[in-house]
């Protein structure tokens, strides 16, 4: 039986009772296997820890320290087990239980919406990514069944105008009117999850599936069509998540993350699929969703209490996967489906800022972990998400307790009384759990010469891994610092505000911005270093990786945003040989400058914007009066006189904007605010000086006459 026949046979088997029974048995075996290996490793680690602590004597501090160690070590061993099993799966080369086995190119497609929720994003990126997928599907001749929706929650008036013009421009360039849609909510209720829910309410019945993309997501037409075919073949699948590869990074930080993710994630992904199977997770983008069960089961409840831990659900993806599973649908992970990509934050500061939001969202998942009727595997996903951030304060507490215990031992002059053999084995074990997946990933890559060459060859890969490991060692304490801060603030009922805006250049973020945010880290690092030295120089050596990370936080954060360093290292296949969809450069024909001003003055911007506004059916005197007063102030005092909120209100009234357009253009400069006169001059063509003179005009007229006659 060849590959295609085997695939067809597999497709026939899906849904049969015999197959289902065998499948469930196999999945149960796998899950038990993962649990046993994880617990086995953890028990060995704990036993060694007991030996070490027991030799020093049990104290309340030691008990607490060991308890925390057990939790953190189990989490670490679970990750390692997953990576190890993933390595075995990939080494074997044939995974029988993966959803992509059921892919059949002959399967017919079905109506699918490609949705991209956006919030004050760069319009060229958003519409460029949509355009790449649109063209890719058109080249495949499969465009008919797809509709594209850019779902904007943008609150910045200039961004809102830019998006409208970008939409009309992309439609004009691709003849996409009626296929590419744009909708902006005036009130971004419930943020991204509310945005997608609003789409479902408005157009949920138009499509069988929706492919959800982030603003920086790129997918190939082949990948999207494969997802639709997989959905058609697997009617119980509610969500199929792809494994997006990180791309388009330019900075040192971005390229290191991109390289690390590309190299290490395949074994983790294969391992994840190995045990979760149809009980997978959803990451919020680069995934396909069956709309009808989503409508029926994925309405997000309000959480008890107020934000940050209560109120609206911020991070909806894990929850939607859990709710989908509750409703009886499966959530699959198409980890080996090519053609799914996403961008990433350019530097450490932006990465941390993103973590600030994700941390709050993941901590909210505690409510769903404690809810009724959530399936056990979904609870594991939720706990993993919570631990991704809350493990940082636990680790800090673990280190603090260890430091206190070491201090007490120092006072009692008990240093050196612990069993060295157990300590050495535990140390090696921890190193294996931490760095083993990297080694396994290297082994996997070196067994595939073609793939190795696509990474730039063995020397570059090895150098890249060494430097990436050093970089991750130095950045880990910075992340632990911030994650601890975020978690503690959220638990205390507060959110973390970011004081500075990081301005990037090729030389990285500005030093002053970095110092303003990172100065406490080296101060704390120096203080802890002094305490560690007092305890014992050997203790200082033991904790030096953490202290070095804290001490060097400022230069590392600045360096992370540089563009011109290490260009020959950290190469990925997508960087060296990017697929067509990533090379596509979409150039929007938009004007530079304040887009809100263009919405008033540019005749095309104004016409497009005004014609897209719905006319108010009824007139409300108070609203009309407010809009008129805003328009009056805007005209008299210039564009800077209105707040963003007032500008948004004005943008919502097409008629007034049309009137303002005419008013400004026809008012002499001396009778209006000078800002408008300056703004109008922007529209002067650079060719103005070469306009034909009267004699030339008459000559032209004369030459036209015979033809006209």
């Amino acid at each position, binding site marked *: 039986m060849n590959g295609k026949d085997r695939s067809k046979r597999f497709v026939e088997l899906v849904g049969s009772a015999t197959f289902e029974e065998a499948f469930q048995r196999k999945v149960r075996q796998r899950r038990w296997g993962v649990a046993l290996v994880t617990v086995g490793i953890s028990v060995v680690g704990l036993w060694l820890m007991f030996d070490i602590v027991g030799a020093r004597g049990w104290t309340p501090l030691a008990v607490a320290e060991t308890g925390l160690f057990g939790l953190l070590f189990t989490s670490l061993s679970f990750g390692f087990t997953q990576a190890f099993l993933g390595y075995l799966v990939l080494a074997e080369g044939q995974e029988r239980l993966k959803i992509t086995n059921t892919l059949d190119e002959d399967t017919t497609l079905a109506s699918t919406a490609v949705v991209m929720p956006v919030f004050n994003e760069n319009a060229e990126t958003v519409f460029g990514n949509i355009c790449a997928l649109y063209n890719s599907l058109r080249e495949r001749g499969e465009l008919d069944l797809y*509709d594209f929706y850019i779902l904007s929650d943008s609150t910045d008036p200039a961004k809102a105008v830019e998006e409208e013009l970008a939409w009309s421009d992309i439609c004009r360039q691709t003849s996409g009117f009626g296929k590419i*849609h744009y909708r902006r909510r005036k009130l971004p209720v419930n943020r991204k999850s509310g945005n997608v829910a609003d789409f479902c*309410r408005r157009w949920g019945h138009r499509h069988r599936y929706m492919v959800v993309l982030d603003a920086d997501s790129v997918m190939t037409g082949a990948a999207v069509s494969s997802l639709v075919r997989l959905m058609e073949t697997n009617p119980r699948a509610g969500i199929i998540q792809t494994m997006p590869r990180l791309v388009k990074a330019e900075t040192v930080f971005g390229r290191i993350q991109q390289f690390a993710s590309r190299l290490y994630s395949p074994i983790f992904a294969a391992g994840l699929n190995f045990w979760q199977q149809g009980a997978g997770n959803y990451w919020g983008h680069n995934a396909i969703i069956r709309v009808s069960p989503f*409508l029926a089961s994925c309405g997000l409840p309000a959480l008890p209490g107020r934000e940050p831990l209560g109120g609206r659900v911020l991070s909806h993806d894990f929850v939607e996967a859990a709710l989908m599973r509750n409703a009886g649908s499966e959530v699959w992970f198409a980890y080996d489906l090519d053609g799914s990509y996403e961008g990433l934050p350019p530097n450490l500061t932006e990465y941390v800022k993103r973590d600030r939001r994700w941390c709050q969202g993941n901590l909210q998942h505690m409510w769903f972990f*404690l*809810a009724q009727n959530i399936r056990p595997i979904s609870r594991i996903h939720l706990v993993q998400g919570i631990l991704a951030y809350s493990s940082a304060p636990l680790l800090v507490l673990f280190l603090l307790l260890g430091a206190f215990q070491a201090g007490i031992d120092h006072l009692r002059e008990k240093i050196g009384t612990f069993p060295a053999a157990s300590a050495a084995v535990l140390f090696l074990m921890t190193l294996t759990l931490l760095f083993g997946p990297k080694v396994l990933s290297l082994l996997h890559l070196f067994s595939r010469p073609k793939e190795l060459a696509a990474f730039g060859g063995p020397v570059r890969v090895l150098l890249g891994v060494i430097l990436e490991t050093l970089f991750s060692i130095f950045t880990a304490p910075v992340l632990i610092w911030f994650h601890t801060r975020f978690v503690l603030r959220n638990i205390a009922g507060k959110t973390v505000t970011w004081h500075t805006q990081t301005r990037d250049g090729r030389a990285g973020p500005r030093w002053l911005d970095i110092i303003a945010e990172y100065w406490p880290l080296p101060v704390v690092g120096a203080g802890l270093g002094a305490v560690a030295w007092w305890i014992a120089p050997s203790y200082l050596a033991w904790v030096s990786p953490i202290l070095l990370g804290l001490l060097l936080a400022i230069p590392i954060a600045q360096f992370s945003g540089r563009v011109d360093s290490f260009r020959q290292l950290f190469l990925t296949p997508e960087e060296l040989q990017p697929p067509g969809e990533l090379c596509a450069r979409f150039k929007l024909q938009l004007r530079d400058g304040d887009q809100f001003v263009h919405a008033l003055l540019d005749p*095309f911007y104004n016409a497009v914007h005004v014609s897209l506004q719905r006319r108010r059916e009824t007139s409300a005197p108070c609203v009309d009066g407010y809009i008129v007063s805003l328009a009056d102030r805007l005209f008299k005092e210039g564009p800077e006189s209105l707040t963003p909120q007032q500008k948004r209100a004005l943008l919502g009234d097409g008629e007034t904007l049309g009137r303002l357009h005419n008013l400004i253009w026809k008012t002499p400069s001396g009778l209006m605010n000078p800002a408008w006169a300056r703004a109008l001059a922007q529209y*002067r063509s650079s060719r103005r000086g070469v306009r034909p003179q*009267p004699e030339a005009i008459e000559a032209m007229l004369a030459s036209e006459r015979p033809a006209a006659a």
Partner: protein
Amino acid sequence: MAISPEYIALLRVGIRSSPEWKEAWDRINDYLDALKTPESIDRELILLSSFERAIARKRQEPFTPATELAFDEVQKNLDHSLRHLIDQGVPDDCRLIEERVRLYLTENVDGNILGRTAELSEEVLHALRDVKLQAAPNLQVASITARPLELSSAGKGFVSLAAKLSPIGANRILGWVIGLAILGLLVFASLYR
């Protein structure tokens, strides 16, 4: 087309000699530039005929600024040139907007198609008349309703515990004092065990 060079020259001299009309001339040219109107005979004709009528109106409306008069006349001229691209049912107050939308949709590297609409095929003209700029399709309403969160018994216990502890967490100083006290107690108990 009976416009003599002398007349054009006179008109231009007249426009340039008066600051008010010069500003109007520049403003209208800026507007046509913003509309991406190419340098062509049609542009000049629109300009000249608009100013001719505006100057005539100025005699009757001496207090109306020249810029306003010229802009009104240009709008009328544009409307006259583009009216055939719009469906007759479009109300007057929307027509100018719709005409600009048509110019935007048909704009190419040479600029807008003002004066070149005769080159458009009947099929394109028909399509342009049917255009209605609509960013999103018509609604096909569905409902997505959230079910309330039902906590397990452990969850309820946790919530009640959290409710009791929340005053501590909400008070920064109290939180630190209690956290440090627990830590201190652990250290103390370990030190004097």
